[in-house]
């Protein structure tokens, strides 16, 4: 591990200034569950590590049915999962966030870090996509929003520009008769990175017999998490039947572009994209129906 400098700014402005000064040489530290391991194993280099846990806005977590959900970029997974109102309103996100590590990792790892690390297999990102989440970033040019599905641009690469940092993740309050789910496949029951993952969300009509709109997103089957818009389009206006779900899952499978690596084979992942999309949709529909 290379020696590095350490800074712990208390404001976003200060952080943006440090990032700008050390362009490309600085890394942000929240829980450190990815970064510290990467630095120790020489998989990432950093001349400066900037600890963002002392910035109040990045540690703020708020939810109300009116304003929706806002998660500071440094908020730990454990804090998100500990809020009953959030658990109720964002079931797909909770499915994903609760999968990120065991109890010790949960209390360190942040949702912002999971996004920033931009792993194609990140569990939280397909879930954020199906919850219509938006990433709020700030940089030298001020604040802007990036939809969750556009945040990752390649394996380990995100859409942040020089000097920018992720401040918070926002998700709108779910409408009535909304349901969401995230499922991943791992060979063991813990300790693994997703071989494939799928998130799904649906909004049902008042009668509960028609899907008003839906989203399906995949993880670990492409260089970035994928929003499968065609699957959502195929579901909209249709009854939530096994056949309709099957068709959407097949569409999701068809857009997967997986690779073979030490965690799984391309054909296994393509197959799992179908299985997991179908199961996630079934669960999302069941949850939406349960809210009626």
């Amino acid at each position, binding site marked *: *591990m*290379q*020696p590095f400098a350490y800074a712990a700014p208390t404001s976003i402005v200060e952080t943006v200034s440090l990032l700008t000064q050390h362009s490309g040489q600085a890394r942000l530290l929240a829980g450190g569950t990815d970064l510290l391991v990467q630095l120790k*194993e020489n998989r990432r280099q950093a001349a400066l590590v900037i600890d963002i846990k002392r910035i109040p806005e990045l540690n703020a977590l708020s939810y109300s049915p009116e304003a929706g959900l806002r998660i500071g970029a440094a908020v730990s997974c454990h804090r998100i999962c500990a809020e009953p109102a959030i658990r109720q309103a964002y079931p797909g996100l909770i499915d994903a966030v609760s999968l990120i590590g065991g109890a010790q990792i949960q209390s360190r790892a942040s949702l912002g870090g999971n996004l920033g690390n931009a792993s194609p297999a990140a569990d939280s990102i397909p879930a954020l996509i199906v919850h219509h989440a938006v990433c709020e970033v700030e940089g030298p040019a001020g604040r802007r929003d990036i939809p969750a599905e556009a945040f990752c641009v390649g394996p380990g690469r995100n859409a942040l520009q020089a000097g920018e940092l992720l401040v918070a993740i926002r998700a709108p309050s779910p409408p009535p008769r909304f349901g969401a789910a995230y499922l991943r*496949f791992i*060979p*063991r*029951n*813990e*300790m*693994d*990175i997703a*071989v494939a993952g799928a998130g799904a969300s649906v909004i049902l009509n008042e009668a509960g017999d028609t899907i008003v709109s839906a989203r399906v997103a995949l993880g670990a089957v492409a260089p970035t998490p994928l929003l499968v818009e065609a699957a959502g389009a195929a579901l909209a206006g249709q009854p939530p039947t096994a056949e309709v779900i099957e068709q959407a899952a097949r569409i999701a499978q068809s857009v997967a572009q997986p690779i073979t*690596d*030490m*965690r*799984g*084979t391309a*054909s*296994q992942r*393509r*197959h*799992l994209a179908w*299985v997991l999309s179908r199961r996630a949709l079934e669960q999302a529909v069941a949850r939406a129906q349960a809210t009626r």
Partner: protein
Amino acid sequence: MSSATPTIEKPPYRVVGTRPIRPDGVDKVTGRAIFGADVRLSGLLHGRVLRSPHAHARIKSIDTRAAEALPGVKAVVTGHDFPDPQNKVAASGEGTVNLRSLAHNCIARDKVLYFGHAVAAVAATTPNIAEEALKLITVEYELLPHVLDVREAMRPDAPLLHDDLRTNEMGQRAETPSNIANHTRHERGDVNQAFAEAAVVVEREFRTSMVHQGYIEPQNGTALWNADGQISVWCSTQAPFDERNQLAEILGMPVSKIKVTPTEIGGGFGGKLSVFLEPLAAMLSKKAGHRPVKMAMNRAEVLAATAPTSGSYIRVKIGADKNGCIVAAQAWMVYEAGAFPGSPVDAGAGVIFAPYRIPNVLIDAYDVVVNKPRAGAYRAPGATNAAFASESVIDELAEKLGIDPLEFRILNGAKEGDRRADGPVYKRIGFIETAQAAKAHPHYSAPLAPSRLDPEGKNPAIKRGRGVAAGFWFNWGGKSSAWASLNPDGTVSLIEGSPDIGGSRASIAMQLAESLGVRAEDVKPAVVDTDSVGYNDATGGSRVTFGTGWVAWRLGEKLKQQLKARAALLWEVTPDQVKAEAGVFSCNGRSITLKELAGKLDETGGPIVASDTFESDEYGPGFGVHIVDLEVDTETGKVQILRYTAAQDVGTAIHPAYVEGQLQGGVAQGIGWALNEEFVYDAQGHLLNASFLDYRIPTALDLPMIDTVLVEVPNPGHPYGVRGVGETPIVPPAGAVANAIYHAIGARMTALPMSPARILEAQGKA
């Protein structure tokens, strides 16, 4: 949790068969136990290793000047700093090792033979400086074609790893170089005729991947090469005396100059029988002006460059007559030796048909080098691969014959007097009793265990099945030495040289306590360095509770004889008139306790000590029969183990809790091997999954409670009937799991691991 099935009446032991607290327990749970990482000496330097990024390459040059110039760097070594030992074979655990190969494995000379092969090492004042110095070493490589697959490596046109390797073809040395190091054959009767006459014949081929022991504590070693030529080494090892010998050859020093202190060990399973870092640390110490050097691997190094066990290709053919009697069995086995000859294929050949009585046998076993790390021992080395193949075929035969799979095994089971497929005639063994115990266990007649993936039974994609398999391990006797001294309070200090990897301090101390007539808690065992106790073979081959335990039994007897003499002195009688019973010495109505007598040592002639050594081939082999219930998510290929029962002939269980622990541990590792563990190499021969994230050993969440049945068939070759117990339990699981998967989904799995991707493939789904 466990049921004991005593099949032969045991004498009324007072200590043997009880469950005292382990003597090393408090130190371990409070963190006081000294592991290799805890060794700190004044002036300590830290060593790191530069490793090959290539699977096979010639080293054209190594330039270490920039590294040596880095402030804080005290020494750099390469292969050329070491003498080149002769081709000489020495003991390594229950197997052997060629010391020249071992030297070249510790640090490459002219060629690197696998990804991760050590090329140079640096000692510096901090680990970070050592790490940075590695980046300043320039190695010029000439890439050579490599070979990873054993059957490709056997081809005449395959890239050769060693220009001087000639096949030992059943005793004849071949004339041309080859990657096939050895071919052994075991032949009895006429298999071709027997197959032709058999009512049912099943033949299948199997593949298994290279797997790692997965011990928690990485290899480490601290060495001090003193200015007077004395070399002290502290390391995590199962075999301090073997390592002393290996160090002597690799460093070109006499054994008398080398002292090896085995630190507490965080798992070995056969992976810590030989040196890796220790010679590098010693040579760095010498070059750094005789400062001590400490080295420890990280997990990636452990996985890429220690001694995992062989992947293999095995073809098995078994035939039976219409009554279900096996008439012939044939196996063609090829094991990966890794970069240097010495895979456990011959052990595999001894195991593959061991549980059965078979009149006609033909086994061909090939040891083949490939560009992977040197294969080592892993808990019953070579056996799991073999039993996976044979037990899958046995299961299929039983099914074709319409015979219950355990009944089929009992019908064909080997007994005392039967000849094992590779030659030896069995003495008293307990295979039949073990198979009967498994068959009688409630698990075998119970309905399939309830689903975990689908508790409500709503998902038709979830299928459940049950499988059984048997397994065998030779066990080993080897050589042991120990000594004991009686303390004035009546306790005994027991000084032994067998590193305690599985609770052996307790099981050895208990045997001394039994024979002397004291409580287990009155014996204080200590594992000491190679200068402080006589020679001991490795802790391996499930031999220590048997062999070192035998010595402990003798030590107790010897102390008792001397105490009788002391009592006789007090009472003015002859020693043979004194009786000793449960720690009380008596004669003609007078009696004195052992503790009282110990208090009178000074008045009766001074200290009492005893020492003894042991060598025996009377170790008894062990058999296991396992039952597993599992479920398969046929859509994802995921397997969940639901219920597991392991029955084993354990001889006499000295400390039943530790015997149960050995069975459970072996099953846990066997299930990992069966389902997910494998070394994944890319086409260039780079190991891709050198971490515990991607080398998937089972977690606590992946295993059910593992039930054990201790079948006690005492070994007539041991005073307390001990048989080794630690290795047999890893042998049956892969076969049992494969058979259960078949009964769940109807597909025969013929490759390990039976990963989700393979299970999807077997169903034609991916």
